[in-house]
């Protein structure tokens, strides 16, 4: 019943709220913070969230299918670290890349297999494989925390590429976002992900290959992580494996969840990732300009993520009837 006075809050979804907050923040920062509205700073904002956004795209696809991939950051950092280590120790580029690609695919397949066919909750599988990937690569395959990109390698050149004065990773993010948008919205397989995320049992009953598609999503997420890792290495000229123990992983979940992709699956899309990434980008940039220490930034991000999860829990309450025992 629409009466005069209060706006209808029910019709406001999380995406709308977050978008409004992002706009308000943007305007406030533009007015209040010197140098925020500067074009270079705006490019820096977009650039800073590109890698995060790319990772969030992969995470979004997994979450829409009612899963989660906590191994994304480990795969991102460790695959590229191994790749660079192989290059530094003289392995031919093609062979090294083939190794790494095979490794990444194997981890994606393992995640998917354990989730889909062994029925292990995604959260535990990916927590365990993430820990394993980091531990294995760090202890067996590489020798130090940070691995530099070899001089003149294409990854280094990639980092220097500019188009219209905008770094290449922004275009990669935009391109990937567009591809994911097309995939999720207009392809049969993309739609199937929503069905499977919304109600896996029903999706299976109508003949959707739910389990193979689950595997596919984790492989996709792993490949996206590899791309994100290569871009990171390109812009920093090295990859620091300590990023695995940082809060990057939670930033990814933050971007996806805060944009309005329900953790119970079946909801959301690329637009939500973009909105989430915009908010986080503006927020991080503003905090950096105000000169808030990194540790405090983490605290603020955690508080926001907590708020986002609480709101998510209220807007998308867990369905006690379909929620399975042991769904934690």
């Amino acid at each position: 019943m629409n009466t005069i006075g209060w706006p209808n809050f029910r019709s406001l979804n999380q995406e709308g709220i977050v978008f409004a907050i992002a706009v308000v923040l943007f305007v406030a920062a533009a007015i209040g913070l010197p140098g925020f509205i500067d074009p270079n700073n705006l490019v820096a904002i977009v650039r800073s969230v590109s890698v995060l956004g790319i990772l969030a795209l992969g995470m979004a696809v997994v979450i829409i299918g009612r899963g989660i991939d906590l191994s994304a950051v480990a795969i991102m950092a460790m695959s590229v670290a191994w790749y660079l280590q192989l290059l530094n120790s003289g392995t031919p580029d093609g062979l090294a890349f083939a190794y790494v690609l095979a490794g990444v695919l194997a981890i994606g397949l393992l995640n998917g297999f354990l989730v889909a066919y062994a029925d292990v909750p995604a959260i535990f599988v990916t927590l365990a494989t993430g820990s394993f990937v980091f531990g294995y690569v760090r202890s067996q395959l590489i020798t130090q925390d940070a691995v530099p990109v070899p001089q003149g390698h294409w990854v280094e050149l990639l980092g220097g590429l500019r188009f219209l004065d905008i770094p290449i990773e922004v275009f990669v993010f935009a391109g990937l976002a567009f591809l994911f948008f097309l995939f999720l919205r207009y392809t049969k397989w993309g739609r199937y992900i929503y069905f499977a995320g919304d109600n896996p049992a029903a999706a299976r009953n109508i003949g959707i290959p739910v389990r193979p598609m689950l595997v596919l999503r984790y492989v996709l997420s792993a490949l996206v992580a590899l791309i994100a890792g290569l871009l990171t290495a390109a812009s920093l000229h090295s990859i620091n494996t300590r990023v695995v123990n940082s809060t990057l992983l939670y930033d990814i979940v933050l971007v996806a969840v805060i944009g309005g992709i329900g953790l119970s699956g079946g909801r959301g899309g690329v637009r939500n990732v973009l909105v989430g990434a915009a908010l986080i980008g503006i927020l991080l940039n503003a905090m950096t300009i105000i000169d808030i220490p990194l540790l405090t930034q983490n605290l603020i991000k955690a508080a926001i993520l907590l708020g986002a999860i609480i709101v998510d829990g209220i807007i998308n309450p867990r369905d006690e009837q379909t929620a399975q025992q042991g769904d934690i």
Partner: protein
Amino acid sequence: MSFRERLQSWRYNLVPDHVVGEILTKRWTDNAIPFLALVATLATFGSIIPGFFKLTALQESTRQLGEFSMVVTGMTVVMLGGGIDLSVGSIFALSCFSAVYVFFILEQSVWLALAASLATGLIFGAINGYLVGYLRLRAFLTTLVTFIFGRALFDILVTTYAADVQLSTATSDVLDFIGDSTFWGLSVSVWLAIILAIITHIALTRSRPGWHVLAVGGSRRSAHNAGIRVRRTVFMTYVFSGFCASIGGFLIACRLSGAGPGTGLNLEIMALTAAVVGGVSLGGGRGSVIKGLMGAIIVLTMTNGLIRLGYGTGTNQMVLGIMLAVAVTIDIRWLKNRHKVLNEVYVAPVYLKMGETQSAAPGSGTPYELDNRLSAANHIGLGELEGPEDVILDRADNLYCGTRHGEIVRFFAPDYVRSEVFAHIGGFPLGLAFDKSGNLISCVGAMGLYSVSPDREVKRLSAETSRSWTSIVDDARLRDPNDCDIAPDGRIYFTDSTKRYDAHDWALDSIENRATGRLLVYDPKDGSTKTLLDGYRYTNGVCMAHDGKSLFFAESWACRVHRYWLEGPKAGTAECVIRDMPGYPDNINRASDGNYWMAWLGMRTPSFDLSLRHPDMRKRMTRRLPQDEWLFPNINTGGVVKFNEKGGIVEAMGDLTGGAHPMVTSMREHKGYLFVGGILNNRIGRYKISGADPNWTSPASYWGAKP
């Protein structure tokens, strides 16, 4: 016997296949895997690392173990309640910092530091509990976020106050005692961990709040429907976890006299791995404190061992990742498939070659020759009854029978039209007998031996006997009490047909054909129950001989009747009096002419006899075929057989039309009539016996003429 059959009989009768299934029914098998893992881990690292078991080395690792196992105990309780707490590392670190701050910077007493620690843990736990319990957020992500939050806070605090802590001069004997000294060879932290574990264990297994936690973890919805305050219970588990982690944090503050950036790092994944490796189930309801402790020891031994072996950065995470993945997968698969495995292996048929029998076909001329006389019986309670396994009449000619619904129904003389529920017991009342003072004694399937007084008071006489030493399944419990009879001295002799199956799974017992039936005696004088005979193939009917010095009992799947001597030179022994009958015997009762009536629940068939010689085939059958396609004893044709004191067959009668009494499980003679019951029948038959004593009644035969 052919060579093939000899091999089969060795293979299936000598190899105790059934043990596997029986072991799998035990809850403690859940503990076996983590325990073996524990032994293997300790053995491996103990042999690789020199001096691993040396006291000084152990001291240091046990101190760590004390702190760690506390955190694991908290995690275990949360997981039992169906949640998970990833913030334990942060709580641990923050509590440690609280203690350090209060002691070193505010320079307050150790006890105040402890209070600060506990308060930190409890508040943090309460926040988690509120979010997960009351707001019903997802435990994993929520505690993950509070973990990040707490970690960020801790990092800020530590960097801010690190220098102040370094400069502090506060010291305390109490602090040193808690942190460094030992007490009867064990450090304080280990003692505290042991005490906490014991209290938690008792609370979980013996107290109402503990049961509520397990109930909520086992099935949240059912717990809610049962009236348990689910949200509050979940809330409390997180508060408890916070409490445990904070004690751990306080202890490490005492031990290290400070807090550093590494405090509590990776603790959450270690604690989680420990709980899961120990066998605490994800999703709740299954697990114990002991399992959590076993997991804690395994994980800590592994990680410490690897450090001492000198493996580099990352090895720990690798090993933890592998352990977590493997343990979670095993846990999930085991939980999912345990009952399937159990179904597959529980039925373990044995080989049996049944003896040649005489035909019971009409016109065969044998004493067993069946006719169609029972089809002429009148019906009592047609359509009202379900499953009158046994029937009995009292001195006032009223008729009693048990029903599938757990009731004993009384039909009133003289026409047996009017009926009432005489008593409700539950279970499935099977064999019936009247004792001297008119109490109705009944063997109640799946429950035990019960007595119903004339004024309908139901009393349990016996539900268990003494446990045998070698049995794996609990054979003290009466699983399938079947028929009873009462000796002149008042002792009640009764049968328990099988130790391995519940009453309604009698068909599986017949397919398995393992001899686990027993004859037991209940002594009303001291209320004790003793096992007299064991190892028969489905002991069934029991009947006191007319002179009261021996009793007959039926062994259904072997088609035999035995006589057990109560007195005389053969007292306490049994001898087989009828063997290789063509039918499966059920209840036995006295006849007016000094002979005995015996019911046949079904007839032997050549096909099933043949299958008894092929245990492998029966095993495959139960595994691969749906239940309604199994081959099991024919119960579409039964009958009533009269035999004499020596075991000679006097006559046999049946209902060859199958219309009224296809399967007969009992019959009772009373004043010239035979009352016939069947466990799958919907009526009682009343059949006029030609030439029977019209005044003979069973109560009079047992207890003399009316007093």
